[in-house]
């Protein structure tokens, strides 16, 4: 029998978080789920806003009644409509991507290959969440620029200071929505099922509507960001918004812990 010291010839460096982030980003970029969800969140929202605007402009009274203040053909109406769509649809869109990012390793069976690597599962989960956060900022920025373009195309005039503030709140609302969806990642890690996690995202979307209807929106973390954006920042205070952020951080931490202590075949 031969013996040897540990081979070093083909091991160039110790992989760190950066390596895992690049790997996860590559997987998301190449995935159909990422492409469809990105399209739905940006193109879908803009298409809905265009459809609503066209309907209102043609005098569709039923639509005008349903849309309420969002039926105004100006920047305020456009931003209100965008906020409503983001608040409801964003939870599902972001939830689907998070469910896929985390649970696909179990459904594709690749989780077994993520053991026996010189990079911990916790760090891989962290990389997934970092990639998700970066993707959410890109989606938010693209959507906000799309809304700005729509307003200009609809001849609402150049944005005033208030409109710029509204656009910033729309940008922040999209990021807040991505943040409050992180419990879906934890559910995906616990259930090891994409479908169960998507079900969780749908539940979150329903809860957020119920929270708004029940009048507890400000203190309900899944409703507060939408209320804040749609009330021009007046209906929700900083403490209430912090609670939403805390939910996002908690979802991420629980996901990381679940992956760090992961066991297969229990």
């Amino acid at each position, binding site marked *: 029998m031969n013996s040897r010291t*540990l081979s070093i010839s083909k091991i160039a460096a110790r992989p760190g978080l950066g390596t895992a982030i690049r*790997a996860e980003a590559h*997987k998301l970029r*190449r995935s159909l789920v990422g492409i469809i969800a990105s399209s739905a969140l940006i193109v879908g929202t803009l298409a809905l806003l265009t459809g609503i605007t066209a309907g209102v402009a043609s005098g569709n009274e039923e639509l005008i009644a349903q849309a309420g203040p969002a039926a105004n053909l100006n920047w305020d109406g456009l931003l209100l409509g965008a906020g409503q769509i983001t608040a409801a649809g964003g939870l599902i869109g972001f939830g689907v991507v998070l469910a896929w990012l985390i649970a696909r390793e179990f459904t594709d069976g690749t989780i*077994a*290959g*993520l053991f*026996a*690597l010189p990079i911990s599962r916790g760090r891989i989960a962290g990389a997934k969440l970092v990639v998700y956060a970066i993707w959410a900022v890109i989606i938010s920025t693209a959507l906000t620029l799309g809304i700005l373009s729509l307003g200009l195309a609809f001849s609402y005039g150049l944005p005033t200071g208030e409109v710029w503030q509204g656009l910033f709140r729309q940008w922040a609302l999209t990021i807040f929505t991505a943040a409050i969806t992180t419990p879906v990642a934890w559910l995906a890690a616990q259930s090891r099922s994409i479908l169960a996690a998507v079900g969780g995202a749908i539940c979150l979307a329903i809860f957020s509507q119920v929270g708004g209807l029940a009048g507890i929106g400000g203190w309900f973390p899944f409703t507060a960001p939408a209320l804040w954006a749609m009330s021009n920042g007046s209906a929700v205070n900083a403490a209430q918004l912090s609670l939403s952020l805390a939910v996002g951080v908690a979802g991420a931490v629980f996901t990381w812990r679940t992956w760090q202590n992961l066991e297969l075949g229990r």
Partner: protein
Amino acid sequence: MLRFAGVTRKFPNGAGVEELTFGVDPGEILALIGLNGAGKTTLMRLALEMLRPQDGHIEIFGTPLGQLPIQKWAHVGAAVETALAYPELSTAENLQLAASLRGADRDCVTEAIETWGLEPLARRPFSQLSLGNRQRVGLAAALQHDPDLIFLDEPSNSLDPASVIFLRNELTKSAQSGAAILVSSHHLDEVARIADRIILMNHGRLIGELHTTGPDLERTFFNRIHVDDRNRQTAAHAQMLESAAAEPN
């Protein structure tokens, strides 16, 4: 390179492994043989930290598993259960991803594609490959960084005869260069050609060894399993009688 000492991990349904004690030395190929459900995959999962033992301890590179510095895992290659390969990525991208997650040199990917004859599949998405080709990609991903300790669970599954021979040669070369290899299989004849030792598993326990050059391996294997099953039944029966005798009338 790898040591199991009295390792036990039981599951609520009664399955699992008990009192596993064995080792694999540098340059050695150890084959693990057993029927379905014997505990071979559980043993592999324990060695790769997918499961934690309830009793006993495992050492890799002379260090207890829980204390193993994470960078040492770069010297391990494993193809256990499903390959680390993503359906949306091509063969080359999957090999690149596996290499980068191990901190391996980029050149090893080109080398692996050449060595494993994967050039025609290099740009094809993993999802479009046949089962046999997926297995080849998985094995290439596990072995491309020239690991010192190799775990392979049923590696010849779905492989065509040419690939089986190629794999056999690759494992023999790795062992000759000093790697320690633990391989599980259902195919006795196949492992007997490359293994230095064959250990038998039955109902979660190691029940002995087979000589790789011994006569009629299959018959010997089934005889050992049969004797073990009979001993287990006798022991269970004796325990039942003891319990019945101990009960008050």
